[in-house]
């Protein structure tokens, strides 16, 4: 096994160009599990924890650009007001030890359908910034997940950052697990209301080959909501929203739960999330 340890971003991109097979590692919370349990023996590993730029975040043209190496703990502590959905999801990631080390960049790199960061990124219409020695591009997160544990990054690219618009309305995240802490999602659901644009965005985790949005549910409920009067949506509309959210999922039976349960749980979470978010909108958003 080869171990690469670039100390700058330029060096990292050059190394990735020279070693396209290199597996990037940041917090190690996915990669080390694979190595320790002998599930994977990567030929080359590239440690990105020395690249200081990756651990920075800044505001840029109205978006918050968060380096791929910013940990979950820092997202909770430093960015909770700007991206509450992602912060709520971050709070459910593993344990304090994992949150101190794990990064959203790593979550995107692994691209597991169960990654906790993905649903709120989907619900926030985040962009993923990919970089290579030959340039940088930004991919909408809805186009980023291409299959189970596959993403849109090319072999010579590294994940540099993600970009999110600061919350323009209430956001929620819910995750079903069979334990009250430290659990991988049976399924999860994120919801973001965009009060200014009167949009609703969703994200579904762990209920399909990739993290998924629920566009039909979004469109349906956008039309039902009383954005001006702020009256609660009808029970029927809420129920329909839940059904459409569940219908967007493509779940399977696996060791963590059944497909039928996942659909059921998604409909419940979607209904509840809408209720909580709308209540916040009624009382909290100017």
């Amino acid at each position, binding site marked *: 096994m080869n171990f690469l340890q670039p100390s700058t971003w330029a060096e990292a991109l050059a190394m990735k160009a020279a070693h396209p097979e290199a597996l990037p590692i940041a917090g190690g919370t996915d990669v080390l599990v694979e190595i*320790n349990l002998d599930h994977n023996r990567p030929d080359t590993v590239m440690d990105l924890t020395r690249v200081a730029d990756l651990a920075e975040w800044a505001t840029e043209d109205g978006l918050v650009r968060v380096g791929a190496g910013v940990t979950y703990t820092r997202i909770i502590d430093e960015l909770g007001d700007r991206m509450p959905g992602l912060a709520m999801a971050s709070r459910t990631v593993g344990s304090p030890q994992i949150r101190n080390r794990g990064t959203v960049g790593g979550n995107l790199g692994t691209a597991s359908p169960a990654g906790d960061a993905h649903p709120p990124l989907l619900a926030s219409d985040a962009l993923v910034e990919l970089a290579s020695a030959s340039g940088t591009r930004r991919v909408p997160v809805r186009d980023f997940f291409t299959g189970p544990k596959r993403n849109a990054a090319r072999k010579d690219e590294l994940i540099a950052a993600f970009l999110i618009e600061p919350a323009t309305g209430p956001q929620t995240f*819910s995750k*079903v697990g*069979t334990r009250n802490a430290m*659990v991988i999602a049976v399924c999860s659901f994120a919801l973001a209301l965009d009060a200014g644009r009167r949009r609703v965005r969703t994200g579904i985790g762990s209920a399909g080959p990739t993290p998924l949005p629920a566009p039909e549910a979004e469109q349906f409920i956008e039309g039902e909501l009383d954005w001006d009067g702020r009256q609660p949506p009808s029970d029927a509309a809420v129920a329909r929203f839940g059904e459409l959210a569940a219908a967007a999922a493509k779940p399977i039976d696996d*060791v963590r739960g059944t497909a*039928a349960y996942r659909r*059921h*749980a998604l409909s419940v979470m979607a209904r*509840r999330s809408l209720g909580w978010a709308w209540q916040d909108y009624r009382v909290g958003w100017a």
Partner: protein
Amino acid sequence: MRVGESVRRPDGAAKVRGRFEYSSDLHAPDMLWGATVRSPHPYARIKAIDISAARAMPGVHVVLTHKDVTGRNLYGLEIKDQPVLAHDFVRYWGEAVALVAADHPEQARRAAQALKVDYEVLKPITDAEAALAPDAAKLHPNGNITRQVKIRHGDQSARADIVVTGEYEIGMQDQAPLGPESGLAVPEQDGSVELHIATQWLHVDQEQLAAVLGLPPEKVRLTMAGIGGAFGAREDLSMQAHACLLALEAGRPVKMSYSRTESFVGHVHRHPGRLWYEHGADRDGRLVYVKARILLDGGAYASSSTAVIANASCFSCGPYRVPSATIDGIVAYTNNPPCGAMRGFGSVQNCYAHEAQMDKLAAELKMDPVELRMRNALQTGDKLITGQTIDGPVPVAELLKSIAAMPLPASGEGKGGDVDLTKLPGGVSNTTHGEGVKRGVGYAIGFKNIGYSEGFKDYSTAKVRLFTKDGKARVEVHTAAAEVGQGLVTVQAQIAGTELGVNDVVVLDADTNVGSAGSSSASRQTYITGGAVKTASEAVRDRVIAMARAELRAPSGLHIENDNVVTGTGKLVVPLATLLGDEVIEETREFHPRQTFPLDAETGQADAHMQYAFAAHRAVVDVDAELGLLKVVELATAQDVGKAINPQAVEGQIEGGSAQGLGLAVMEEIQLKDGVIRNASFTDYLLPTILDMPPVRMDVLELGDPNSPYGLKGVGEPPTISSGPAIAAAVRAATGRPITRVPIRPHDLTL
């Protein structure tokens, strides 16, 4: 350091500083690392093994197969049916087939992967019922029934006005001790081997190893290494024989340490089971009869299955007066992972069933479930369904009364405002702010035997030495008993300190230089090894008193108190150190509890058990009925411990045992598909975290058993029996769903 005090653990300081040496921490100069080649199939015939590629890998020193087993290639606690290394067949996924020793663990792993085994894959039997079918493949020469227990008690044609039936299913639980199976084998010049190992029973390991290695027992010396929990998982051999074989062949020390994934196939599990029950009662709720069929899946090898099914059958009706019982307990071989001992040992599975049945009966009779249980409570002098008259305290009604009288926790938080997510089902995963949440309260009581049963020889050996060190009296206690975390090392010191009146008591490391202590299982060590330490200490004390009387012409009625020989009224006769001088007083004693007898093959009648222990639980559970998620709000428990030798340690056993019961009820299950474990990791085999385990309210009764040392009763297992069934009952109460299977899964509550 006296009996009845909450004495601090002598190993506590080393443990909190990270300086306590566990079996996985062992190392030796020039040491090699062992690795195991394991079967990828649950059932297959081995056609050929080619070790050449593995042998040629870098760093590899030794590769071994069944051909290299120097003694008998079979072992087992009750039935010698398990190969050390598979030769003709592999019978479960993960069975050991070959061994490798190399300089670095990664080299050993790569070599293990390179070893080629040619298998003829066979169709596995993965269901116990299917294993019983007449046309099922025979997995062992005597067929697939490992043991069948028949209990025929009372009127076999009894009929009742009220009849309830039920079918229950229990998942396969893992002991999941945090310390992995590990140890260090050191070969000696004379062809003997020294094994440093974490085990529940040194001497039974030694006996099995001697046979497997083809060595006389004195050439297989075992020293106890630090044990990172056990709970039944360290009763059978895991890597012991493998490390010894590798070390003897390599001529160098060999360390083996399992990964968590390997640990799941490296030890036996709690038997999964299916249980069919019929309870008959009169209109006042008095039980008339119980009929049950209990089918446990023993997996590929026997381990302690024969004893587990006896327990499951003997205690199948719970601690109730049952005039007539017809019980058929069967444990079958399958191609699933082998099952054996786990805390509760057969009584956990049946408690789910008999307690669900009692609740069903109460509902049928429109009677309070606690009242129904009290009405049928077993009492001292009653006959068990095995015909044995139960003596000593039998506080079934008292325990039920106690838990029913404890105050209930405040109701859950209402909707709105700032919700504390950690208090709700789903926790910080934010699945409810109170929506769908219903509270339920449930009760359960269980019992089991303490110590070995059915004539299995139960005894322990203790050597106690009294001498002077640095001008003060010191006592050394030496036994082979395993300190698995339960606090036995403290208990031994307390007992010796109490009997000898000496303040400086040291418990030596356990090894095979002293006689057998039996296993640290069956909640027996405080009773049996405690009894041995007490007896040996008394013998030392008698000699001291005789010495004082002879040398000082002191009066009778002397005893030892606070390092001094004193008169009956406490007057100083002589400091112990002065009396002893250079003298060393040493006594070794065996302690044998009362005898037990095997169950009759046709009727299951016998005085099969030595002591019984009881515990009751009340569970309060909040259920998000829409999502099927749970939060156990509180457990309340009452248990008779006879005498609390170390009250703080007793509380720790009750809290920890209750937590393991909770685990089986709500999350812990080894999931199998076609004989393959799908969740052999702590990512998917979930253990209760600190956010899952609620506070435990407890009432510890000390009713004193006239037959046992200090009146004590075994403590470790009872809490694991009834906590889960109480949780299941609470979920039933909250949701109205029947809950016939554990662990309770979200989809069981919603779809």
